C-alpha cells in the first residue's frame, strides 16, 4: 500500500514538474545552445543565412565544421571592443547614479512611519507599470535642443543658447537611471526595513554621532540590498537597446545596438550570435554573483 502510494506520489510530482521544467528546457535552455551553435557556423546568402555545422561527408562520416571566424572577427574590428567597453562604462556610471539617488529614497521610506511605507513604495513602483518605451519617449520631448528643459532654462535666463543633452551619453544615463530606479529601491528597502534599530540606539547611547553610526552599522547591514540592486540594474543595462537607440547619438556605441544592427541591418546572424555569446560570457560572473546573493538572503 505504502509502496503504491509513493509510486503514485512520484508520478504526481513528475506531472507537476514536467510542464514548467520542459517548457524552460525547450524554450530557454535550448535557444542558448542554438545561439552557441550558430555563432560557430558560416554566413551564407540563403534562408536561414548560415551553414550547418554538421555535414555528412561522402564516406558516411559525420563532419563537424566549426568556424571560429566570427569570434576572431570580433577581435579584428575595433568597433566591437569599443562597444563592449562603452557598454560597461555606461552601465557602471548609470548604476552608480541609480544607487546614489535610490539609497536616500529607500532609506527615507524605510524610516518613515509604518503606515506610510507601503503607499510610498507603491509610488516608486507605479511608473514601472507604464511602458518603458513611453517613459523613454517622454524624455525625448524634455531633453532635445528645442525641448522643454532647454526652453525652461532659457526662459529663466540661465543659458542663452540650448545645451546639447539629447544624443549624448548624459541622456543615456538619465534614461537608464529613470527606467531602472525601482529595481534599485525595492531590494534596498527590503534590507533597510528589516534592520534592527536598537543597534543604532545603542550606538547613540555610547556617544556615536549619527553619520558615523550610519557608516558603521546601517551601510554594512544594507550591503545585500546594495549588491542585489546594483546587479539588477547593471546586468540589463549592459545589454540595453531601446534607451541608447532613442536617447543616445551616433557616438553612443553600445553592444545592444551592435547586435540589433548586425541582425536587422546586416542580416549577419552568425556574427550577431557571436556578439551575444561574448556578452553572455561577460555577464556570467555578475549573474552568478546575483544568484549567490539571492540564495544567501533566502537562507537567512
Amino acid at each position, binding site marked *: 500500500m505504502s509502496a503504491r502510494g509513493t509510486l503514485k*506520489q512520484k508520478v*504526481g*510530482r513528475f506531472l*507537476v*514538474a514536467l*510542464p*514548467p*521544467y520542459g*517548457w*524552460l528546457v525547450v*524554450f*530557454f535552455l535550448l535557444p542558448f545552445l*542554438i*545561439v552557441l551553435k*550558430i555563432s560557430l557556423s558560416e554566413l551564407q546568402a540563403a534562408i*536561414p543565412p548560415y551553414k550547418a555545422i554538421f555535414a555528412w561527408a561522402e564516406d558516411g562520416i559525420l563532419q563537424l565544421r566549426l568556424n571560429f571566424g566570427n569570434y576572431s572577427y570580433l577581435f579584428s574590428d575595433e568597433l566591437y571592443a569599443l562597444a563592449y567597453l562603452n557598454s560597461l562604462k555606461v552601465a557602471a556610471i548609470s548604476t552608480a547614479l541609480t544607487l546614489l539617488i535610490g539609497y*536616500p*529614497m529607500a532609506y*527615507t*521610506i524605510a*524610516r518613515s512611519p509604518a503606515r506610510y511605507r507601503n503607499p*510610498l513604495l507603491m*509610488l*516608486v513602483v507605479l*511608473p514601472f*507599470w*507604464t*511602458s*518603458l*518605451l*513611453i517613459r523613454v*519617449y*517622454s*524624455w*525625448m*520631448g524634455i531633453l*532635445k535642443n*528645442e*525641448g*522643454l528643459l532647454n526652453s525652461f532654462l532659457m526662459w529663466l535666463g540661465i543659458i542663452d543658447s540650448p545645451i546639447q543633452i539629447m544624443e549624448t551619453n548624459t541622456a543615456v544615463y538619465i534614461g537608464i537611471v*529613470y527606467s531602472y530606479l525601482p529595481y534599485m529601491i525595492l531590494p534596498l528597502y527590503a534590507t533597510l526595513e528589516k534592520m534592527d534599530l536598537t543597534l543604532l540606539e545603542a550606538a547613540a547611547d555610547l556617544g556615536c554621532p*549619527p553619520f558615523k553610526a550610519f557608516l558603521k552599522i546601517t551601510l554594512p547591514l544594507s550591503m545585500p540590498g546594495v549588491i542585489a540592486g546594483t546587479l539588477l540594474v547593471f*546586468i*540589463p543595462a*549592459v*545589454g*540595453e537597446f*531601446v534607451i541608447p*537607440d532613442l536617447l543616445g547619438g551616433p557616438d553612443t556605441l553600445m553592444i545592444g545596438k551592435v*547586435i540589433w544592427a548586425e*541582425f536587422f541591418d546586416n542580416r549577419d546572424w552568425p556574427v550577431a*550570435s557571436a556578439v*551575444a555569446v561574448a*556578452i*553572455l560570457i561577460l*555577464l556570467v560572473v555578475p*549573474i552568478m554573483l*546575483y*544568484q549567490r546573493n*539571492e540564495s544567501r538572503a533566502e537562507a537567512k
Partner: protein
Amino acid sequence: MNASLSGRAASLYTMLALGYAFLYLPIVLLVIYSFNASRLVTVWGGFSTHWYAELLHDDKVLDAAWLSLKVAVVTATGATVLGTLASVLLVRFKRYPGSTLFAGMVAAPLVMPEIITGLAMLLMFVAMEQTIGWPAGRSMTTIVIAHITFCLSFVTVVVRSRLAQMDMSLEEAAMDLGARPLKVFLVITLPLIAPALMAGWLLAFTLSVDDLVISSFVTGPSATTLPIVIFSKVRLGVSPEINALASVFVAFVGCAIALGGTLSRKQD
C-alpha cells in the same frame, strides 16, 4: 539634538520628494502636451483633443493594439499557470535531480538582457521550423511562446514568496483527513495564494504589452504589436499623436492598477 534630528528628517523628505518629482514629471508633461493644439510638441498652441481623434482613425495603431491585447491575455494566463507550477516545484519539492538547473533557468530571464533572449528565441524558432516544420513562420504564436517564457519567471517571483509564507498546517490537516494532494491544492492552497496569482497575472500582462525587443525578433510581417508601431513612429521624432497614444496607455494602466488594488483589498 532634536533640532538637528528634525533637520535631517526634513532634508531626507525633501530628497524623497525630489525623487518622486523625477519619476512623475516626465509622464505628467507627456500627458499635458498630448492636449496641445500645435504640431510643435514644445510650443503650447492651446487646448485640443485633435490628436486623440486622429488616433481613432489610425487603423495601423488600432490593429496593433488589438493584437497586443490578445497576446497579453494569452501570455498572462499561460505564464500564471506555468509560474504557479514552477513555484510549487521550487518551494515544495526542494531537492530532486536537476533542481539547481531549474532554479537557474527560472532566475536567468529576470536579468538576461532582452536583446539576447530575443535573438536566442528567434534562432530556435528558425531551427525548429527547419527540423520539425513547426512553428511555420513567425506570427502571434511565436510572440506568445517567447512572452510566456520570460514572463513566467516574474510570475514565479511573486507566487513563490506567497507560497513560502503560507501556513502549511492547513494542508497537513486536509491530508490527515484523507484528501488527495490534487484536491488539497485546488481547495486549500489555490484560494490562499489567489491574490499572488492575480498580481502575477497583471505583472505578466503589463510586461507582455510593454515588450518591444523580444517581439521585434520573434515576429513576422503579419504580426505587428503596439510597441513595434510606437517604436517605428518614435524613431522619426517626437509627435503629439504619440503623446496621445502614450496618454491612453498610461490611463489604461492606471485603471488596471486601481482595479487590481481594489480587488486585492477586498481579498484581504
